[in-house]
């Protein structure tokens, strides 16, 4: 089953790579003829072309993430962070007089469901754009479809390089790519944490390999070789052998490119056998969930972060206030603040696109963001040829059971 999934993912990646490098529909989507349109355009003499999802008083956006199933621990806060900011904007009067309506579809982190959800959003709900879809394989599955339909996809919740390379006119990444993070982490491990013997624990799939391979390449560029490479399969649940194997290599630092449960299990197994290296982990793990799962075994762990501290940073005060207002039972955390930040960026672009909103103007407005930040992220830029997003990370550390920033944002 697992092999099957891998093959399938490979096929996806291949098809994604195989498509022309510049799909750029410069004169994009002939607005899909909408039979159910409430305003029959025939009567008016020169009708303005209808923009999907945009009416005089609303902008309809679609979001796809896992609201049920194992990944819902990420999907739910992700959806709520975005919903909270849009509701707040709507309560302030919206953007150019239009309220933002967010339709969230649950795909259970299953690419087949993602495709169905995207079709529903595009063809039935006629959304203006798809925002912050969650996951690599899931979003990869709808990429060609959204490009073909000319639907902008903004702020993918995955650091895969698929979104930015090759360049796609309608697709915008936001978080640092795993490849970039691997390089920045190698720099931090060697220069700041003074690591001499480094081991790597990573998920044996496209996500884990992208981060781990670029980390190792950056080590090699500094004349270092990892003392152990310990991959794990996504279905693995028992990490005692992995912890032991890492311990046998006697590293002073272990770089971890994994998701929550394997990372937390590894920390607990290491604690049981008295293995105490420095741990440096991907930003994917910098969330209170890791602390819940690993308990005191997570003490001292370093991780990346591409947003300010959701719980304590003064820049995030408004985020905490807005989240508490609309979702009182949702505690501030890495996932909801990430979506909240993307929602802020989307609203900024909608404002810049002006009252006569079209998809082309929206894309141009996003591309006009230069050294832009709302305070929650480091400054970043998009351009007409580059949609990668944020290129800096900070380092946070678990101290007394909380994530605490230990460095400012830095880049290459």
């Amino acid at each position, binding site marked *: 089953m697992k092999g099957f999934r891998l093959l399938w993912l490979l096929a996806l990646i291949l098809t994604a790579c195989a498509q022309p490098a510049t799909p750029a529909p410069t004169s994009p989507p002939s607005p899909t003829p909408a039979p159910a349109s409430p305003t029959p355009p025939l009567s008016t003499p020169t009708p303005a072309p209808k923009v999907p999802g945009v009416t005089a008083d609303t902008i309809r956006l679609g979001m796809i993430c896992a609201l*049920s*199933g*194992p990944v*819902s*621990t990420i999907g739910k806060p992700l959806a709520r962070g975005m919903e909270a900011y849009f509701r707040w904007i709507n309560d302030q009067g919206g953007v150019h007089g239009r309220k933002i309506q967010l339709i969230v579809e649950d795909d259970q982190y299953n690419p087949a469901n993602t495709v169905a959800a995207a079709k529903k959003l595009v063809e039935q709900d006629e959304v203006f754009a798809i925002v912050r879809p969650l996951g690599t394989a899931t979003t990869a599955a709808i990429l060609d479809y959204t490009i073909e339909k000319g639907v902008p996809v903004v702020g993918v919740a995955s650091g895969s390089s698929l979104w930015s390379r090759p360049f796609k006119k309608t697709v915008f990444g936001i978080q640092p790519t795993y490849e970039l993070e691997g390089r920045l982490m190698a720099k931090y491990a060697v220069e700041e944490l003074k690591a001499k013997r480094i081991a790597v624990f990573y998920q*044996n799939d496209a996500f884990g390999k992208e981060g781990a391979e670029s980390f190792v390449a950056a080590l090699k560029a500094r004349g270092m070789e990892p003392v152990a490479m*310990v*991959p*794990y*399969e996504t*279905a*693995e*649940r*028992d990490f*005692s*052998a*992995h912890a*032991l*194997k890492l311990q*046998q290599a006697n590293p002073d630092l272990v770089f971890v490119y994994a998701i*929550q*449960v394997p990372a*937390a*299990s590894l920390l*607990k197994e290491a604690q*049981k*056998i*008295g293995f105490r290296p420095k741990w440096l982990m991907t930003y994917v793990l910098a969330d209170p*969930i890791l602390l*819940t*799962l690993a*308990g005191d075994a997570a003490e001292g762990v370093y991780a990346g972060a591409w947003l300010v501290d959701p719980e304590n940073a003064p820049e995030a005060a408004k985020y905490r206030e807005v989240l508490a207002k609309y979702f009182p039972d949702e505690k501030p955390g890495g996932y909801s603040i990430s979506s909240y930040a993307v929602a802020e960026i989307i609203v900024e672009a909608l404002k810049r696109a002006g009252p006569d909103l079209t998809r082309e103007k929206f894309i141009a407005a996003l591309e006009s963001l230069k050294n832009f930040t709302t305070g929650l992220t480091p400054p970043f830029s998009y351009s007409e040829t580059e949609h990668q997003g944020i290129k800096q990370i900070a380092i946070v550390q678990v101290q007394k059971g909380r994530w605490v920033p230990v460095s400012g944002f830095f880049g290459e």
Partner: protein
Amino acid sequence: MEALIRYLAGGLSAGALYGLMALGLVLIYRASEVVNFGHGDMAMISTFVAYTLLRARWPLPIALLGAVLFGAFLGALVEGGPLRLARHRRASPLTLVVITLGLALVLNGLAGLLWGHEIRTFPAMVSGPPLRLGPAVITREQLFNLTVGLLLALALYAFLRLTRIGLALRAVTQNPEVARLMGIPVDRILSLAWGIGVGLGAIAGILAAPLVYLEPNALLPLLIKGFAAAVLGGMTSLPGAVIGGWLLGILENLVAGYIATELKTPFAFALIVAVLVVRPAGLLGRPIARRV
């Protein structure tokens, strides 16, 4: 050498849990000729019951006992309810297997509704620094799981060999028709086998949950490996199930330690395939003669 002993200890400990799953599966299979695909989800539900009782501040031993009894009751209920109704309507064993598969999906969905899909932590039974016995280093959890697995297997063996009910159960597994003619209440005995089997699964789930966390799909790998251990051991042999579990656990850890961690599961299963090609009845199994 030290590393080898530690890989073996880890493998034996994981294998003890596979063995517990396998024991339940084999007991149920021998009694009723049904491969219980619902085993993992019944164990998962029982573990959630333990979780809920612990959250309600029940003392640990009572909460765990309650959950295991719940598992046993659930097993007896499944046998006494849908399976018995179908069997009395002359359903084939394959139909019964499909019923268990359906129940697995129902229970999985139900757990998602009742407890949600958040990943939850489950308290470990034992904790503390690892124990050193000469060159060997073993964690307390590993020692505990190994001991519990072994004691339960011995207890089950003694129960089947030394008690009248155990004798009746063995009679039913050998020939239900004759057993019925001899005055053995076959239906009650089948319920008992299912109760014990699922109860053992519940214990395996409770021991595994601190390691793998708890959510509706958390025990799926354990079920698959329990099946593998049962088949490796022969599917009809109780000692075979325990030994199959240990072998699988050790194999996995040796592959992870000395070949490649990502091959841990695939390699172990490749070896099982190889064993079954050479010995189709498994290591300790005897082929079941067709009952006419």
